């Protein structure tokens, strides 16, 4: 998660390591970004784009199915009987048994799984044990907080990181580069919930510009709602921006060393044009990969950040559901998050083809 502020060669090594971690790096490995090993593993001729897309789709779907089995199995072994939980400690064994039958908890495991998975596909997540409302309603309500939060954070981090990366790469080795990469190095080391506390202290306690926590709801108007999402979004975005800026810089530097950049410069194109038209576009693949990865980080990050700011979002919902043993909510939200991660990674994979036409035509 780190690279040198001073030399870019070392950071390549680091960056490669990051890619090695990436779940769906098959296409990325066809670019120029991976450890040699990942490249050399492909001796067979590259299949056509359609075959590639189909393969990726199939893998994504299989991963989703497997993930649902894992989630179901894990929560199956969780201690605590939901029926007992709903009825309280004073209920008789008969009452509990009756409710268990009503809830379908006594059906065979495979049947229950199929019922649950079928429900997921039709967006019927079942009813929450503790809230006694359909899970889908809870999720919809909470998503109205978490999704804008994650999107604002992602947008913020991109808006900050890409210009900083561009700036750093173009003034590589000079003071501006050293300073911005030093700040990025620091940003990577800051835990987002501590950063959140500091933001609360400065902007809510000291300057009283924004609320310290809570969420008025979208019904209270767009501005008050957005205002209460501002600090959490900044807290989420900063560490991500630091990582993204470093990735952008190293990807750009790698590209800037390519022959075609020298050619473009030699034929008289101004540096700025080369940077924007040739270098940035070619550096997009690692940047996109990291953006996809960050989406998963952001989703998980909301769990802590929403707790810091007392935001009624998906992360807080799942955290409370876990501690209250509200299994059906946990299952549903976890599956939703996993599906989102898989979908985003798929989209990132597919977007490589949009960014890099070479990948489209390769036979």
């Amino acid at each position, binding site marked *: *998660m*780190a*690279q*040198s502020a*001073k*030399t870019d*060669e*070392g*950071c*390549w*090594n*680091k960056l490669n*390591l990051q890619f*090695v*971690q*990436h*779940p769906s790096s098959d296409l990325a490995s066809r670019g120029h970004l991976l*450890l*040699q*090993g*990942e490249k*050399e*593993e492909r001796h067979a001729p590259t299949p056509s784009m359609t075959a590639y897309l189909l393969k990726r789709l199939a*893998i994504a779907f*299989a*991963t*989703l199915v*497997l*993930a649902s089995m894992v989630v179901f199995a894990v929560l199956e072994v*969780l*201690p605590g009987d939901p029926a007992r939980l709903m009825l309280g400690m004073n209920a008789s064994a008969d009452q509990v048994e009756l409710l268990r039958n009503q809830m379908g908890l006594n059906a065979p495991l495979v049947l229950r799984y199929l019922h649950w998975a079928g429900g997921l596909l039709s967006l019927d997540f079942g009813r929450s044990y503790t809230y006694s409302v359909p899970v889908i309603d809870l999720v919809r309500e909470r998503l109205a907080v978490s999704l804008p939060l994650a999107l604002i954070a992602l947008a913020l981090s991109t808006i900050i990181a890409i210009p900083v990366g561009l700036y750093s790469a173009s003034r590589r080795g000079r003071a501006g580069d050293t300073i911005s990469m030093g700040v990025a*190095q*620091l940003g*990577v*080391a*800051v*835990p987002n*919930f*501590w950063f959140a*506390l*500091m933001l609360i*202290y400065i902007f809510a*306690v000291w300057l009283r510009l924004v609320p310290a926590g809570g969420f008025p709801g979208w019904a209270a108007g767009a501005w008050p709602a957005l205002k209460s999402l501002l600090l959490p979004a900044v807290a989420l975005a900063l560490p991500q921006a630091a990582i993204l800026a470093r990735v952008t810089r190293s990807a750009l530097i790698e590209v800037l060393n390519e022959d075609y950049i020298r050619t473009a410069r030699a034929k008289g194109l101004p540096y700025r044009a080369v940077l924007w038209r040739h270098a940035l576009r070619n550096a997009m693949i690692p940047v996109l990969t990291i953006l996809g990865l960050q989406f*998963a*980080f952001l*989703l*998980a*990050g909301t*769990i*802590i950040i929403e707790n*810091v700011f007392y935001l009624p979002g998906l992360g807080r919902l*799942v*955290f409370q559901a*876990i501690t209250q043993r509200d299994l059906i909510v946990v299952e549903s939200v*976890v599956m939703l*998050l*996993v599906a989102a*991660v*898989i979908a985003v*990674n798929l989209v990132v994979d597919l977007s490589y083809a949009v960014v890099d036409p070479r990948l489209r035509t390769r036979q």
Partner: protein
Amino acid sequence: MTLRIDIPEETFRSILAKAFGNAAFVAGLVITVLILAMAIVSYVWTPYDVTKLVIADKTQGPSLAHWFGTDHFGRDILSMIMVGARNSIAVALVAVGIGMGAGVPLGAFAAARGGLADEALMRVNDLVFAFPALLSAIMITAIFGPGAINAIIAIGIFNIPVFARVARAGALAVWPREFILAARAAGKSSTQISIEHVLPNIATLLLVQGTIQFALGILAEAGLSYLGLGAQPPMPSWGRMLFDAQTRMVVAPWMAIFPGMAIVVTVLGLNLLGDGIADILDPKSRRQR
């Protein structure tokens, strides 16, 4: 007839010279050693006893007596940070150990075997990566009960696929090399080759990844204990201290500032160290400089 090729030998001394010329490495090493020393010293000495509550001294600002101030129970923040370092380091380090111990053999095996075993490992990796690590860690600690041991397991599990992937990728780059062919011709088994020839060649990669995962582990542990799922009171932990500080931000901001700084400095030191090692030992940087 023997063939001799002159390759400028990389001696231990030359590496050492380069290491101490590398600012990131030196800074990272100094910080890491200091933090480690602080944790070790805390076993024998801390400025104040962290288990003793002195209500008369509660929420005092930084002073000569209490450099970082005191918390709501009158405990010395500096002493708590020192003791908390133990916990953070132990959790993150053991989690790295779990990740390496299980991940490296898996990755090396997949690289040596190839085919179905390799494909299966990669698909399991995909599966694990589909779960946001922090979410799963929260689930694991919530299911098995909060505590340092379960935090280690929760963080360690997610280190396994990371190391498996790094080891596999590194090993795949080593396998086509000539000296492996020579070892095979000499009749060594693939297990022997993996241990004797592949492993030493990917050690640098693993070391660098180790420092990264160590740093990430510190952050993850802080997050978990902030949520109340890490080490339990009265054992001080950095994350827990931040949780306690949150509701007292107005009266005692130092309760939040210093434990957070401890996390930042530790993670920064480890990241710099990792950068430095990668810089020093990366053959690519050797060639280009």
